[in-house]
């Protein structure tokens, strides 16, 4: 008994390596070290206090997050602001990420919720097509570009009028190329319900677009 207690005490002494989580500065070298990390490893590194790991998560997921925000909001300014908010929320909630879905799916969920919350507060300013200067149109003729722009305006306006869940399901499935299983995970519904939302979204979109 005494021996075991002494052994326990010895474990608690100076000789034991401190394996507790330590915050450490993350510099470029740290980011290089983590460049090959899997998503799970990056999350673990973040939770160990390596802020550089989160920079890499942002780098890997910023484009799809921005795109989903753009599809919801219809303008660059809101999409940019909301994308930043998505990552900030993700950072704050990272400790709750259990790995039950992929990091991408989890970020999509945050993005959808963030966008829906914003839409509930205000109607986004729809960006005129000629403000979309960052679209690469070099390979298009003028008539092709005009046609594409007209179509984009109509689709964007129609999308904005869809019920929230239908809009989210259609955006995630059509533009973000998520599987129905992933769409269901993001929306917190069954796969059947996710498919039904896509179906009804397309039916409503057809009505809103008129002849397509």
């Amino acid at each position, binding site marked *: *008994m*005494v021996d075991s*207690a002494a052994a*326990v*005490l010895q*474990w*608690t*002494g100076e000789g*034991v*390596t*401190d394996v*507790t989580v330590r915050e450490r500065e993350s510099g470029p070298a740290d980011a290089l070290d983590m460049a090959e990390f899997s998503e799970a490893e990056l999350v673990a590194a*973040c*939770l160990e*206090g390596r*802020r550089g790991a*989160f*920079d890499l998560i*942002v*780098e890997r997921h*910023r*484009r799809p997050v*921005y*795109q989903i925000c*753009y*599809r919801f909001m219809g303008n*660059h300014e809101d*999409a*940019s602001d909301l994308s*930043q908010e998505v*990552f*900030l929320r993700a*950072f*704050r*909630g990272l*400790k709750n990420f259990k790995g039950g879905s992929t990091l991408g799916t989890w970020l999509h969920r945050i993005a959808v919720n963030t966008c829906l919350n914003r839409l509930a507060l205000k109607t986004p300013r729809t960006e005129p097509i000629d403000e*979309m200067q*960052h*679209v*690469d149109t070099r390979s298009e003729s003028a008539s092709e570009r005009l046609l*594409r722009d007209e*179509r*984009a305006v109509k*689709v*964007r306006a129609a*999308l904005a009028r869809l019920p929230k869940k239908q809009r989210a399901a*259609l955006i995630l499935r*059509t533009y973000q190329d998520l599987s*129905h299983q992933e769409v269901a995970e993001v929306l917190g519904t069954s796969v*059947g319900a996710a*498919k*039904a939302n*896509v*179906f009804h979204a*397309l*039916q409503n*979109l*057809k009505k809103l*677009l008129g002849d*397509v």
Partner: protein
Amino acid sequence: MSHLSPDTFVDLLDGSLAEESLPHLKACQACRQQLAELRATWEAAQGFEAPEPSPLFWDHFSARVHEAVSTEPLPTRGWRPFAHWRMALLAAGAAAVLVAAALGPLRTDTVSRGTVAPEAAAALADQAPVAEPLQEDDSLGFVADLASNINWDNSADSVLTHGDADRVLADMDAGERAELRRLLDEALGNRKI
């Protein structure tokens, strides 16, 4: 005749279901028409392209997120593996030390190994020194507090095996180890095992 379900239409649009696999589609003009319209709408919807921001935008974006995140406290895992185990082991270990300390004099002075007749056992029990009431022991109170925070139902599938104690101890932070040391010091020092 029942028409195709929404699920089936979506599977057909995805291509995860082949049209040839559905005899109904061949026979039903209404379903063929609906599928064609849905497909056309789907293709029209693809026309809404999200713009590709410039590379400069991405650099600025990452910098902005980095700056915003740097003012946030570091995320730490709310649930850590072995967290319950550590509490359970800490409580169980401390309880074992305290119980052993309380019963120590009884065991060494009056109880011998081997079989004891029931009458003799009863007599020994009568003569045995009475341990102080457990409720009056502060250390045991601390252990009871620790144990009361453990969800034993959730811990039921966690069976301690050889080496777990070492791992749990290694996983403790400095504060937890200091608390365990204090507890054990107190128990060993007070009880003089």
